[in-house]
């Protein structure tokens, strides 16, 4: 049996022109979350408690696409989703379509621990959140100025913002921001690549 191990991610697909300062901010957040998880592991918290603790921290920081700082829908609102799974007995919980739950991963954990189901979504998930007394905030809490700017770019490019596979062309890329992928005939899911743009 080996010792403990932990990994965190903040999303795949990074703007190739991401300013160095933003890269440093991202590394500092990842380091902070790793250290949070490491001290919890050293205090003998179980793996399921540590993953929830670390993802809550990532959701609360607006830097990455989750919780506060989430990507915006075509209507400029936030709809969040999360899941959690405990290896030993393969128990799991998931939520989708959340608009007011401050930490979606903790509601997913409650679905796993306190409901007879493994997945709740939209109004049912929000109702369950109220019953469980989790912290709830207005949808505006999750919306950031930067993401409003990115949504505007995505709409101008008529794109569903995905990740950076083709460095943005034409549209200036804002930090960790959007740009339109050039249409080079590449297909994705049977659709022209141009509908996907860098995240």
């Amino acid at each position, binding site marked *: 049996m080996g010792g403990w191990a932990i990994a965190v991610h903040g999303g795949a697909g990074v703007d190739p022109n991401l300013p160095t300062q933003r890269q440093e901010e991202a590394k500092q957040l990842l380091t902070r979350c790793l250290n949070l998880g490491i001290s919890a*592991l050293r205090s003998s918290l179980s793996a399921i408690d540590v993953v929830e603790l670390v993802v809550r921290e990532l959701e609360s920081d607006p830097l990455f696409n989750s919780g506060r700082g989430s990507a915006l829908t075509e209507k400029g609102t936030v709809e969040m989703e999360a899941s959690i799974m405990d290896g030993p007995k393969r128990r799991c919980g998931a939520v989708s379509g959340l608009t007011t739950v401050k930490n979606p*991963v903790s509601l997913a954990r409650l679905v796993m621990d306190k409901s007879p189901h493994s997945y709740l*979504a939209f109004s049912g998930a929000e109702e369950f959140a109220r019953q469980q007394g989790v912290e709830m905030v207005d949808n505006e809490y999750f919306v950031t100025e930067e993401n409003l700017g990115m949504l505007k770019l995505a709409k101008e490019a008529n794109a569903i913002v995905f990740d950076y596979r083709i460095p943005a062309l034409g549209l200036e890329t804002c930090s960790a921001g959007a740009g339109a992928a050039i249409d080079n005939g590449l297909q994705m899911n049977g659709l022209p690549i141009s509908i996907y743009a860098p995240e």
Partner: protein
Amino acid sequence: TVGCVVVDSQGRCAAATSTGGLMNKMTGRIGDSPLIGSGTYACNLCGVSCTGEGEAIIRGTLARDVAAVMEYKGLGLQEAVDYVVRERLDEGKAGMIAVSNNGEVAYGFNTTGMFRGCATDDGFMEVGIWE
């Protein structure tokens, strides 16, 4: 999208993933992150969290496939991650992090970079963005 995978000192694995989805997405769209077996999976062998182009991750049942190739092909953790990223994504773009029940940590991605960090009990720690 953000995620965390952990194996504790008793060899128990766990995984969690959370996201706002895609910018400019249709309301009501569900991606891979909440789908057990696609964006998130954990069992006795490993814990996996994925990120990237959700539709490709769903079609490839990416997170479960890491556990499956470990279980049925006997691959090690990093081999399994590399295999799944290389063979299961078609033209999709994604990344993932994973831990195994014997204290290993691994990641893989075919996108332009991935924000990730990992650490193990023996003092190893790495935070990175690019290849």
